[in-house]
């Protein structure tokens, strides 16, 4: 993959330019907590007026013009119908009598802030959407499509019940594979790819709140907190991985499959970066 070619050069360059820690891109040197603090410091310097807690609102935390329009939308958010639909779906038992509440801790209520997490038995990062579908299949139901529709609505309802809970992603110290997954996600974020040779960092760190092709990229801090998201562009609700795919398409690199390992590792890294911020999903964005 082209990614590997660019990896060494771009990762080193960008990471040393943006982060306080020049090292931190090998399993021995990576320090997630240092990364998280460094990211916050990056934005403190870049947008001195913005409160860290406000980054859950993305671009609206740092751009007044779009914030005003977003406030108007929040008067009566477009995702309200979806939260209701999600609640109904969540509470509807499967054909076998079981329901989603039986698959999740605390009956699935108020648990969004724990996702994604490293699952030791399965040796992989588990996302909420993944576990929603696993719950369905375990109970004889067909899995839902990953990007939009019912899965997004159920995820939206579960996020809604977790609103204002502090995000607390853990990287278990007793399983090196978890740290490796975090590192993969981090590398993915900083690696240039595609026709335009852009990394996530190029637009969402260097380019945050700078008009790029008539859009204002959001800061990476707080990126995942408000998902699933009702995008005006879609006219509907969609999941994080749907956005990952879309963003790849727009930045002219080949999109990966939703819920692929690379995207799950990216979500793991990105959500860890937002530790300390709160869940505020579902959200409304342009």
């Amino acid at each position, binding site marked *: 993959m082209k990614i590997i070619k660019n990896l060494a050069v771009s990762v080193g360059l960008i990471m040393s330019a943006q982060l306080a820690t020049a090292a931190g891109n090998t399993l021995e040197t990576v320090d997630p907590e240092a990364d998280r603090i460094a990211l916050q410091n990056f934005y403190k310097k870049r947008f001195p007026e913005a409160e860290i807690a406000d980054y859950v609102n993305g671009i609206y935390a740092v751009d007044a013009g779009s914030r005003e329009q977003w406030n*108007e939308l929040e008067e009566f958010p477009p995702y309200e119908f979806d939260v209701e639909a999600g609640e109904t779906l969540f509470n509807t038992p499967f054909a076998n009598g079981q329901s989603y509440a039986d698959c999740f801790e605390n009956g699935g209520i108020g648990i969004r802030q724990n996702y994604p997490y490293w699952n030791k038995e399965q040796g992989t990062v588990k996302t909420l959407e993944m576990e929603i579908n696993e719950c369905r299949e375990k109970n004889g139901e067909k899995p839902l499509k990953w990007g939009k529709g019912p899965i997004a609505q159920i995820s939206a309802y579960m996020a809604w019940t977790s609103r204002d809970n502090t995000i607390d992603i853990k990287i278990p110290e007793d399983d090196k594979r978890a740290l490796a997954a975090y590192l993969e996600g981090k590398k993915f974020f900083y690696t240039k790819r595609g026709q335009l040779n852009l990394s996530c960092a190029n637009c969402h760190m260097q380019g945050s709140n700078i008009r790029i*092709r*008539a*859009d204002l990229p959001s800061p990476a801090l707080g990126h995942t907190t408000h998902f699933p998201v009702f995008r005006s562009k879609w006219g509907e609700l969609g999941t994080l991985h749907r956005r990952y795919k879309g*963003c790849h398409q727009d930045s002219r690199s080949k999109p990966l499959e939703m819920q692929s390992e690379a995207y799950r590792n990216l979500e793991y890294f990105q959500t860890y970066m937002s530790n300390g911020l709160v869940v505020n999903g579902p959200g409304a964005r342009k």
Partner: protein
Amino acid sequence: MSMNRRTVVKAIATGGVLIGASVLMPRLALAAWNKNAFEAKDQMSAMKALLGEGAVEDSAEVTLKAPDIAENGAVVPVTVESSMAGVESMSIFIEGNPSPLAAEFIIPAGTMADVSTRVRMGKTSKVTAVVKANGKLYSASKEVKVTIGGCGG
């Protein structure tokens, strides 16, 4: 409960009683939906069809709140407000839209002349609010830029 015209007419025809504490005829409107106005393809014709031939005067007592640059043309928040007395209606026109008349709000006495909604704009356009007060027409306009961002997805 919902009653459509067919049910109501049928009930009357068969001599039946219209059941329900608050039976309401559909389209009990103070001002019927003006087809000519809503389907007019240019703003002048739409305004004339809806509000008549009277001159439309720009007024500081009409306020149109809309973004300078719309985040997304599908959902542009707009608020029309007027401090005048005797406001009868407030209408929103979007010059660049295929059919410029977007909405007409009837303001009965006792209702504030302050309405918010969200409109679709196909491209950068002048947005105009026209207030009918005491039989006369007053307006306020603003250009709203609509861009198609590259980060669509």
